[in-house]
């Protein structure tokens, strides 16, 4: 029953349907962890949405100087995309050994992304764009920093998934963890693509 039809219910009426408790209040029909993740993504989404609002608002002022494009960022973007694809592939696997390979390579690409982002910071700093130089570069450090912390948090979750996989947890538990990781990865990829586009191509 959809949310809208549920809240049209009249719980005070003693009609048949309400006499007997529904056999299940089966809420959303998915694991608690999935619901929790989606709620968390709403929070993170709200966070980055507000960052993007602030970015767009601040951009309208006269002192705005856009950052130059950096080739390295394309490489980093590719790393994050590869990481996302790998985890998506891992998600459909049934074979524990292959899952291990998928997790390791997904983690590897994500680490490569983070290291690449740090190198990008270094390159911008060498070019004289510091956090205090102008609002565009301040935003670059701020947003890549917050995004990177979220990727780092994802890596912690991925590490726990690895521990489950190597630790011989049941396959369905491992698969649940992998699918949670992959959803989170896709989400962070989306956030990065939006900001990459916003900062350099709009």
């Amino acid at each position: 029953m959809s949310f809208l039809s549920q809240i049209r219910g009249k719980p005070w009426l003693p009609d048949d349907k309400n006499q007997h408790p529904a056999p299940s209040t089966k809420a959303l029909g998915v694991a608690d962890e999935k619901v929790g993740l989606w709620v968390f993504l709403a929070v993170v989404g709200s966070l980055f949405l507000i960052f993007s609002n602030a970015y767009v608002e601040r951009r309208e002022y006269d002192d705005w100087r856009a950052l130059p494009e950096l080739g390295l960022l394309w490489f980093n973007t590719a790393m994050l995309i590869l990481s996302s694809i790998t985890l998506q592939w891992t998600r459909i696997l049934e074979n524990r050994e292959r899952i291990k390979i998928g997790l390791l390579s997904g983690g590897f690409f994500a680490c490569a992304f983070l290291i690449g982002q740090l190198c990008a910071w270094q390159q911008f700093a060498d070019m004289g764009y510091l956090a205090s130089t102008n609002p565009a570069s301040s935003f670059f450090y701020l947003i890549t920093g917050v995004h990177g912390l979220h990727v780092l948090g994802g890596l912690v979750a991925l590490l726990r998934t690895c521990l489950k996989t190597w630790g011989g947890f049941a396959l369905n538990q491992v698969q649940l963890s992998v699918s949670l990781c992959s959803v989170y990865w896709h989400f962070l990829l989306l956030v990065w693509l939006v900001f990459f586009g916003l900062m350099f191509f709009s």
Partner: protein
Amino acid sequence: MTQAAYQEDLPLHEPHSFWTKYVFSQDHKIIAIQYTTTAIAVGLVGLVLSGLMRLQLGFPGSFSFIDPASYYQYITMHGMIMIVYLLTALFLGGFGNFLIPLMVGARDMVFPFVNMLSYWAYLLSVLVLMASFFVPGGPSGAGWTLYPPQVILQGTPGADGGITLMLVSLILFIIAATMGGLNYVTTVLQARTYGMTLMRMPLSVWGIFMATVLALLAFPALFVGAVMLLFDKFAGSSFFMPAIFSMGKQLAHEGGSPVLFQHIFWFFGHPEVYIVALPAFGIVSDLLSAHARKNIFGYRMMVWAILAIGGLSFIVWAHHMYVSGMNPYFGFFFATTTLIIAVPTAIKVYNWTLTLWHGNIRLTIPMLFSIAFISTFTIGGLTGLFLGNVVIDLPLSDTYFVVAHFHMVMGVAPLFVVFGGIYHWYPKATGRMLNDTLGHIHFWVTFIGTYVIYFPMHYLGFIGVPRRYFADEAYKFIPESAQGLNEFITEAALIVGVVQLIFVFNLGWSYFRGKRAESNPWHATTLEWQTPQTPAEHGNWGPKLPVVYRWAYDYSVPGAAEDYLPQNVKPLGDEVDNDSGGGVLAET
């Protein structure tokens, strides 16, 4: 396997040692008590700060330790503590934790470990905030709205350590609130017991649920604002800081927009008002219904109003910024949305009042506080209609009229529900009743005191006394009589402040000496009163989860043996026969 059956079969991690049972507990009831006691403790700090503020306003210059800097620090910390660390934490972390699993018939929150982390992060945020009293320069004195540029400029009290600690503390609080909020939302969505449809949930759960949704979506704005302020302060960026001369020299900042911060802040700040108001709305509905022995009037409308208020609360924020210089059409839009949000709110007030009508009212302490809530909330809400209009707001902005308005509507009113809720659920949480005589003293002094304190402030506002001023006597436009009124308000405020200690004493004394409570002392219908033990044990329900057959408001049902039918009571004979719908219960 159904969701409820799944929850029923989950292993319960029974705590084995003192530490895991009472300190690092993952039991929602213990966490609720931890949240509540911490919030009350930090709230007492906020109370003392308000007393110090009133001392300066009532008897200016009489106390040598209050200088302008410390006065601003009292204001700032009082506001921040009361709104965020007391009310938000108590409603969501305290009542939310205690009530949600018990009321929806769950064993616990769905992520107990995250729930425990939530409390410890909250405690850490409180400690970091309190630490700012002890750093050189003291806590921030920038006002709880933290407006740049002055918030991080030299010359503002606490511009060095104080503001840093406050921003870090807020970030920690947001992390704590997010971890808690994930639990509250997911538990309501996933862990309801057999038969607990959404529309059978008590309004307390609805209010806390919606407030949590608001918190999850609005706190990120404060997070963004705090992080960007820290960047401006430490990395030298200019998100919010314009080109500015400070202490005789030009700062490196250039081009930033203070108004941008105001938008970000109030995009959090206005939903925040409803983060503390919606749980109060929900809880007071349940208190009124139970103590008036009557079903809540217009349950479905109440649910819809909660949802509507939650949605609308995101598009009214700029009514806090009418004086910041905005496009008149922008102001017109926000004035309109502000007046529209008054409609679902007014519906709720009517429904509370109509719940009392023809009820079998029992003037217990929770009931007294609930009625007091309707009174102060209505008065404060009506002045909100004044302030929501741009033309009326402009002259009244930043006067004591505003102070009176928001203290009535979102300070005192939710606090009355906190008190009412604590008197109501204390027996379930501890197994003992709170002392009634002390409760009456507490209630009457606080209730009358509220009007004595805040009613005169409206008049101060009308004659133009500005808020936030350290001293009023040097201004020609402020008549001398204002000082007399201020002195009177201060005396009342000090009395009300001291009486709160009676409440705190009552909490402690009754825990050891209070009358033993039966398992359902108020004869209420909701599930938390139907637990096999009082206080409820770990896991709440014994081996089997309760089964819900009816909504939460079957009071004074015709034909029932007692004047109430708990939610887990099977349908009576005549209810079953009456399967054509409508009929007996619809008229109760």
